[in-house]
């Protein structure tokens, strides 16, 4: 409950901050629409030559694009801004202020910044997803819907933990922004089902940089492709990674010496 209340407070502050720059809203809207349009036009070109891409129909691919924008929206809404702010605050010592607050510091750094205009990507992703589902014309059973939501949550936890682990490295290393950029540039590969990729690349996108769990797996759940192994694997990895992230965060804090030290 407390977590939600805090999240609401941080969100409200961000809204107050950002509404001073309303032009940014239209710019973000423009850029998001362009990006979506590009993704859809790309699909149109490909599906003018085939009606199935590695076993995925056009509408199923549309659902994947929806998930891609939805998860990308979540990342750029809270995860990415919070983690960059964490890295900065470790370097210049302002993390001190967060640590003195009577709340769990990991929670505070994770929700400290909300890039509200990224809600547009989230909304657009959801819109595309709903459109895809309507066009697929199949009734989504309760089990499938639950599987999708479960995998979306697992994917979000995996991505968040991955970012937190990388960002926590800033307690020991000076330049880790670069590492975060690796995820950003590999995320684009998640717009396509990872089953298309050759084994070595699929492995990298699943276990080294967990893009597959963020986009392909939820989309598989939605289109009835999910098998038990993947489901258990995603849940297991989510639990494991969040525990590791917590551990590294703790170790990092112990290593942190503050601004004036």
């Amino acid at each position: 409950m407390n977590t939600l209340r805090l999240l609401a407070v941080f969100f409200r502050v961000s809204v107050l901050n950002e509404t001073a720059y309303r032009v940014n809203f239209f710019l973000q809207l423009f850029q998001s629409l362009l990006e979506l349009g590009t993704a859809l036009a790309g699909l149109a070109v490909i599906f003018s030559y085939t009606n199935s891409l590695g076993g995925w129909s056009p509408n199923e691919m549309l659902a994947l694009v929806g998930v891609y924008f939805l998860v990308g929206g979540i990342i750029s809404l809270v995860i990415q801004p919070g983690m960059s702010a964490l890295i900065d605050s470790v370097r210049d010592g302002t993390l001190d202020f967060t640590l003195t607050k009577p709340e769990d510091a990991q929670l505070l750094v994770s929700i400290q910044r909300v890039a509200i205009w990224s809600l547009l990507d989230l909304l657009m992703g959801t819109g595309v997803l709903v459109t895809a589902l309507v066009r697929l014309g199949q009734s989504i059973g309760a089990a499938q819907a639950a599987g999708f939501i479960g995998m979306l949550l697992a994917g979000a936890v995996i991505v968040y933990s991955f970012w937190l682990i990388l960002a926590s490295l800033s307690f020991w290393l000076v330049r880790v922004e670069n590492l975060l950029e690796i995820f950003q540039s590999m995320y684009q590969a998640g717009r396509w089902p990872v089953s298309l990729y050759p084994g070595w690349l699929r492995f990298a996108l699943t276990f080294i940089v967990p893009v597959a769990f963020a986009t392909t797996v939820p989309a598989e759940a939605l289109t009835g492709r999910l098998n038990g192994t993947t489901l258990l694997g995603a849940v297991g990895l989510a639990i494991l990674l969040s525990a590791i992230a917590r551990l590294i965060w703790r170790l990092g804090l112990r290593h942190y010496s503050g601004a004036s030290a």
Partner: protein
Amino acid sequence: MSVLEELRGLLRLYAQQFKTTFASMVQYRASLFIWMIAQVLEPLVYLIVWSTVSNGSGGNVGGYTAQGFAGYYLVLMLVNQVTYTWVMYEYEYRVRQGGLSFALLKPVHPIHSDISDNLSSKLVTLPILLVVAGVLAVIFRPTAALSLWAGLVFIPALILAFLVRFLLEWTLALAAFWTTRVNAINQVYFILMLFLAGQIAPLTLFPHWIQILADILPFQWMLGFPVELVLGRLTQIQALEGLAAQAAWLTISLVLVRLVWRAGVQVYSAVGA
């Protein structure tokens, strides 16, 4: 000052810039690695997607087999590497932070240090990318119809592609003189490149009207044309037409760069001035 002396001065400037650029690249090895991932991953993803399409529709899509796509995208990756620039990202910063003022004080046009910086860093990155392309070639087994004449014409085509792309992107970067919101402008440009230069798919796979549009606009002459040329997908007439289009766009971009630069410097007021 005689032309010869002037040329010698420029040569010294390029040599000095190479040393500076090389030193800073060695310093920022990590950025180099991340840049490589982005540079390789995008063509690689399209290579795989189109190969899948080709294999799924009887092994041929618009004249490309899976191996044909492999050839197309590996060469595209290399040509893109030779012709691409990052000056759009830098100009916004230079204008906002006032760093451009120092460049203006120097007795040579600032474009020279950008060209030499661009070429210098490619002397380092191109060999790395060639190795990556070699490894990918072993994995994806590309095919191409190589021929001597196409290989010879490819050299001026590549140089022209570099020049046109450099000048146009440098001109585009000057937008920073008028607005701080260059991201939106750059994004529009990248999307045009994606579709009309042959990045998302070889241009011959697009509907006819898009191909006509691509013939008129500069984008495919900066990237897709040299790629198709060296892969032996163009006739000799098409190759000549391409060179002519490149020459025309070189003229246009030379004029543009002068006009926009002159206008831009006039509206530039450095921080603290």
